[in-house]
């Protein structure tokens, strides 16, 4: 099956788009003449329980893989919003969710990859073990590449133990400054959060810290004390799945705008101020400075402009009619290098 896709790549009418479940087509740029789907590549090739690794074909829905891992008390620590998304699509778009804070993103969890290049060449890099420095780490190059360097056929990933129990500490405030202080206190604490998130919606915000493991509750209580000292209203939520599901959901807008901002931790009050003033929702990883601002209705272009004046901001979901660059302005040197890489991997520029 993987061979079929590889063989089809050089034959298809250019420009060619490689797609998975199609849950993020709004993020794509340019109209393809042909679409190649990874749908047929839906085998969970290996789940090496004792080694905490797995090999997945690109078209495997992430949710299906997670179900299988959970049966053994394990997880792939990637939890982006849409449940129908394939692992290949998640990796190609570098999508992520709240677990990014503790476990890293696709770049940190993918340990090996098999790809088909534009000319049909099938090549792999990395391996199936979690520690490996042999050869170039081409897998990382394909993370966030949107299929423009080749089609991801198969990924090897490292897994983590599924925490037996979770508990969250939540601190609420309407003051961006207080929320910023609370977030810094937690990100600098000697606690092991599985998630440290921020939320802003309808004039009020919250800092959310999630703990998992043998002592989730005592750790959440320690976090609650720190939140209280930072001057925000606090509570402990033990049945916390819905809380974190809401964080994931806020990273999408079916008809509106979602901008992903790469900022610093200390920028949080300023970002919350922008969300407040422009009526946007914000969900983000407070300890990483990575935020998703969502605006269903309103001045979409104005929000993009305000964010890009200050940070690197990628436009993901996009309302009809809004014409903006997806990635914004990159460092000219980085752009040059990205172009040189593109020229080597897809010299005829067939893939979009």
């Amino acid at each position, binding site marked *: 099956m993987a061979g079929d896709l590889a063989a089809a790549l050089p034959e298809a009418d250019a420009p060619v788009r490689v797609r998975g479940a199609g849950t993020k087509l709004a993020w794509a740029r340019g109209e393809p003449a042909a679409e190649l789907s990874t749908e047929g590549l839906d085998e969970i090739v290996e789940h090496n329980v*004792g080694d905490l690794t797995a090999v997945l074909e690109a078209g495997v829905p992430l949710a299906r893989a997670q179900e299988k891992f959970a049966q053994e008390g394990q997880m792939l620590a990637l939890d982006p919003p849409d449940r129908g998304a394939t692992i290949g699509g998640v990796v190609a778009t570098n999508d992520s969710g709240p677990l990014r804070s503790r476990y890293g993103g696709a770049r940190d969890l993918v340990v090996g990859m098999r790809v088909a290049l534009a000319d049909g060449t099938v090549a792999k890099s990395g391996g199936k073990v979690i520690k490996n420095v042999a050869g170039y780490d*081409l897998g*990382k*190059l394909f993370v966030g590449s949107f299929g423009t360097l080749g089609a991801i056929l198969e990924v090897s990933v490292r897994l983590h133990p599924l925490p037996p129990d979770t508990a969250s500490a939540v601190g609420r405030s309407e003051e961006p400054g207080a929320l910023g202080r609370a977030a810094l206190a937690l990100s600098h604490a000697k606690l092991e959060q599985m998630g440290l998130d921020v939320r802003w919606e309808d004039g009020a915000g919250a800092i959310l810290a999630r703990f998992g493991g043998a002592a989730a509750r005592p750790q959440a209580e320690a976090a609650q004390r720190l939140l209280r000292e930072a001057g925000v209203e606090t509570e402990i939520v033990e049945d916390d799945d819905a809380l974190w599901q809401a964080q994931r959901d806020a990273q999408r807008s079916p008809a509106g705008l979602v901008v992903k901002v790469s900022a610093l931790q200390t920028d949080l009050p300023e970002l919350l101020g922008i969300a407040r003033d422009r009526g946007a929702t914000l969900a983000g990883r407070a300890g990483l400075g990575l935020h998703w601002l969502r605006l269903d209705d309103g001045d979409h272009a104005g929000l993009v402009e305000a964010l890009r004046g200050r940070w690197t901001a990628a436009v993901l979901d996009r309302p009809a009619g809004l014409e903006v660059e997806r990635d914004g302005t990159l460092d000219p040197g980085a752009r040059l290098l990205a172009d040189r*890489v593109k020229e*080597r991997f897809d010299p005829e520029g067939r893939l979009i």
Partner: protein
Amino acid sequence: MDGREVTAGSGPAWGEGPPPETEEEAERQPRDLGPLVDELRAAVGAEHVFTHQHQLRTYESDGLLQYAVTPGAVVLPDSTAEVQAVVRACHRAGVPFVARGAGSGLSGGALPVEDGVLISLSRMRRILDVDLDNQRVVVEPGVTNIAVSQAVAPDHFYPPDPSSQIVCTIGGNVAENSGGAHCFKYGFTTNYVTGLELVLPDGELVRLGGKEVDPPGPDLLGAFVGSEGTLGVATRIWLRIVPKPETVRTLVAFFGSPVQAGEVVSEIVSSGIVPGAIEMMDNLSIRAAEGYTNAGYPTDAGAALVVELDGSEAECETRFEQVVSICEDAGADSIKVAQSEAEREVIWQARKAAFAAMGRIAPNYYVQDSVIPRTRLAEVLGRIDELAREYDLQVANVFHAGDGNLHPLVCYDGSNAGEAERAEECAGLIVKACVDAGGSITGEHGVGVDKKRYMPEMFSDADLGAFQRLRCAFDPKQRSNPGKVMPTPRLCGEVPGPYRRHPLEEAGVAERF
């Protein structure tokens, strides 16, 4: 060409264009660096350019002493601008260069190119920014690994901790994607680099990332980390640091055999515990280390297992009790729990001394760095025993048990005729056994010159071709650390397809290749 062409004094003299295709070409007369040396002196000051044989000899090897090549000149730049000037001069002259940090690498990754330029980054050791609020540190490449943790103490630390951390540099760590004892839980260098300033092999200056994470586009930063100096020179590095764990608990348990200890490792990991470090030594390495450190390891033990948990107090205590009972249930001969920081250090002393202590077993050894899926441990150790008997050599095993990174030490006496070759052959078959078990030829030391001959065990011709595409995108003339990583030289060739003029090119900012 096989992997052994680079031995003392016989390095390839690569000049213009791609690596040599023929032996004849490789053996032509040394290049005259004269005019280039003048340029280098102008770039960094005459006192920072070495050309005398006795000075050059200092740089002929890195931490892997089996290989030695004398460079044509050694240059010590002090700033990004000076590195850029040096690389530009090399580019114009068509002379290959090799960047070097502390030279503590174990794969010959910083082995000079004969008559090439060696760029030592030892003067660039400034810590440029310590931003504790944002948990970032910005350093020059010559800063040592330990200096980063020291700069952010006492509340934070920099997790990757190769055993050479007192001397090894962050620039070298970036090139090799260094790990260490704590990477099973904390990850590797690549998980901590958020930004890089690079001088590309043509002298172009590029910035990738910064303090922020997840810049849009392909992860070029991730592709650079671990590229072993073949894609350019990192001149500034942005690092993520993390809070120091609230508590650390350490024990060493002794078992009848490595296989028995390996089952304990599996038991610990499958019960959902992620130890900060989990290290194993076999009887031979215990005996060597004990004779060296007197750490109190019983010399008749079949295996020693060091387990360290760190994290929040509440979590750590519960989990540590679990680890103790897993060891007991598995029939540990004895368990020693560190009751103080001093006792913890004693436990670690033996593990950290294992390599150095090998001198007590044999005058020389080959260290391998293969990785296996942890569940295949018993099978692979059996195969290593078999090979040791077959080759009549002693093989000690010291390894990072959590991630299956073995460091088999093949002991030999180089003064016995043919023994070094026998040891090398045995080491090669050990590597093959690990790859056959689904592993890797190197977990943290890098490919360098030493393991490039094993690359075809892991990667097909098509895989290597894909690697070469990345290499050519960064370094079409292949002048940055040539002769490393790839098993055989490959050409870059022109970029096929329609010529597309780049905007930067039009603006006169960039030159096309």
